[in-house]
């Protein structure tokens, strides 16, 4: 009974041995090869990074520089006029908070609902659990394009308004939040994870007098923190980056999430140096997220990569 908390099994081994054996690694030819591999990796990283660097450079250029025909690669002067202009044109604070609010609601709702459902499906042995799970899994097969039109109509005539009348949810946060809350993907991942929790822990808790709600909040949720953090980051990133659905249901600039607001700015035909500054500003939160949660994201890709 040393450690009952199950951990994601992927990436459990810290370093796997590569193709080269330890003896091989001392040879000069292997060292040369490894040097080559490192160079290729660095080259790839540079190619990956180059567009982002180009964006940052572009954001400092003057209009004359950015519209010069042999491109000036390095701006002569790093002034922040473009950023000031972008901040003047776009309500970044407002859009940022909109995005944050939507993401927080979606992540909180999705995690709560998914973990409750997974708990019910695995540990409470609800009736028809297999069938329900199968049904949930089929939603992974449905492309989003199939859903947008009826979902748009549902949002426009949402049947659960006050007094059970239709209410128009277009141009509200609800229109973006509600369809994002259910995620079959989270339920399946959590279900797999719960399957690895031994039932004896739950029996012990129940014998000690916990009801199911308490068992769930006091035992299951703390035990599943690693996978929950992975799912939280992933659904946050997905929601933060989502563009198609907000584009359809939001027309009021007051409710734009960040990416939609930036795209609307670009659609007005601003000069590209200002656009680059706006793009940099809209990229910063994601980059910070990656830097702060890099372990979680990388572990999550290793763990959930198989699910896609």
């Amino acid at each position, binding site marked *: 009974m040393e450690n009952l908390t199950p951990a994601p099994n992927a990436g459990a081994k810290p370093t796997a041995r590569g*193709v080269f054996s330890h003896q091989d690694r001392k040879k000069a030819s292997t060292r040369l090869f490894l040097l080559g591999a490192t160079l290729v990796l660095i080259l790839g990283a540079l190619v990956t990074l180059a567009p982002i660097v180009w964006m940052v450079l572009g954001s400092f250029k003057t209009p004359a520089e950015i519209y010069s025909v042999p491109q000036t690669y390095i701006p002569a002067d790093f002034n922040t006029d473009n950023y000031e202009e972008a901040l003047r044109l776009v309500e970044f604070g407002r859009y940022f908070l909109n995005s944050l609010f939507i993401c927080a609601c979606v992540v909180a709702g999705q995690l709560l609902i998914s973990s*409750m459902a997974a708990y019910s499906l695995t540990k409470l042995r609800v009736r028809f659990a297999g069938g329900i799970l199968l049904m949930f899994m089929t939603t992974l097969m449905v*492309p989003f394009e199939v859903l947008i039109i009826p979902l748009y109509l549902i949002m426009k005539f949402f049947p659960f308004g006050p007094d059970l009348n239709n209410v128009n949810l277009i141009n509200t946060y609800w229109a973006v939040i509600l369809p994002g809350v259910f995620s079959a993907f989270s339920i399946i991942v959590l279900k797999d994870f719960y399957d690895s929790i031994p039932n004896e822990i739950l029996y012990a808790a129940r014998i000690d007098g916990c009801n199911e709600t308490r068992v769930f909040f006091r035992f299951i949720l703390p035990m599943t923190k690693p996978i929950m953090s992975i799912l939280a980051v992933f659904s946050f990133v997905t929601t933060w980056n989502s563009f198609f659905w907000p584009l359809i249901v939001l027309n009021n600039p007051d409710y734009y999430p960040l990416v939609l607001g930036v*795209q609307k700015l670009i659609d007005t035909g601003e000069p590209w140096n200002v656009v680059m500054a706006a793009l940099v500003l809209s990229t910063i939160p994601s980059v910070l997220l990656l830097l702060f949660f890099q372990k979680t994201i990388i572990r999550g890709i290793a763990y959930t990569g198989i699910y896609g």
Partner: protein
Amino acid sequence: MADYKPFSIYDDDDEKKKSIQIPEEMKTRSGDLDLEIEDSPSRDDEKTRRELMNQLGGQASHPLEAAAEHKPSESLEKTPFLQGQSTETVEERVKEIVRRRKETGKVRDRRKVASIFDKPIEPDKPIRPGKAGWHPLSYRAQAFWFLFPALAFFLLFYLYPMVQGFDISLTHYSPLGKSVSVGWDNYNRAISDSLFWQTVVNAAAFTLISLAIGFWPPIVLAIFLNEITNGKGFLKVLYLLPFVIPAIPAANLWKWMFDEGFGVLNSILQALSLSPVGWLTDPRWALISIVLMFVWKNTGWFMLIYYASLQNLPEELYEAAELDGAGLWKKVFNITVPYLVPVMWILSIIQVLITFQIFTEVYVMTNGGPMHATEVIGTYIYKTAFGSMDLGYASAMAMLMFAALFLFTMVRFFQIRQVSR
């Protein structure tokens, strides 16, 4: 010594002594559960009665009483109280007081009530669970309530829209109320719509090109990353950067880099004294340009999946191969690559699904592109549904797309099912 007989302090006792009406759901198969209220009064009842008697009779207290508490009925028979009063009236008055107290809630009815456990156990009969009706607070129902929110969201935002979508696809939908049912007309229209087929061809081309360009780099990079010892974490983060940043900045950035006049790519081509390319304006190049951006965005992600898979490769395989004298290339092509084949399959299927559903990148970079060269199903549905408000036709196309993707999604579905077994 009065000829006092213990009486019940509850006035409805006689009625309750008759056999109790057992509710339907408590009845057993044989249906003959005969329960009665036990008439031996509890000690609390006895206490209440004696208190009341004391109050009414005045001289009921007796030195023996405290000692005699264990056998109340016996002691009561010996107790010389209530002289000069008829038992009848006292009984009546006690019952009256008890009734009044019950109404004000001061006395609870403490008589033993009928319980299913009173039924004598028949050892040769198996004990069957009773068929209780569904109750919202029962254990089973608790499991249901835990599932309920997810089920509600699933029904409202997945199942119902799907059914609704199919329904809409059979109509000529007009937003102002009157939609006319037109049968399969929308589907026939889609099949004879060359633009629809163009989107299918484009999506297939997109998938093939992206597999051609972007299939091997992540694998090679993952194997290399697995070999080197320093800077792994740093490289991983760098490679993940394009995957994490939203599609909007990424697509706009690439749109600017692909710009025919001022883009950096043409600038480089000119520096190499090559002729510039209309990356997004030339129908031959537009699709490839978007694929390039797509590969840039996803390579790091795919690489990390391959890398994670390599972490689980058992090193005994390499050791055995080394003992058999296998060289570097043999090890790579006979152990590493075959080990990654299942992941390759998974990622290829994912890539097909992603590329068929691509929208944002195309919408931003070309919006269907020069002469519909980059029109994908997503942009076409978007234009049809929200540009010309032809929701019926757009739904029909979405359904056809679903059907076209069905094979791939089924493969994907079984992959996931295998994983979650």
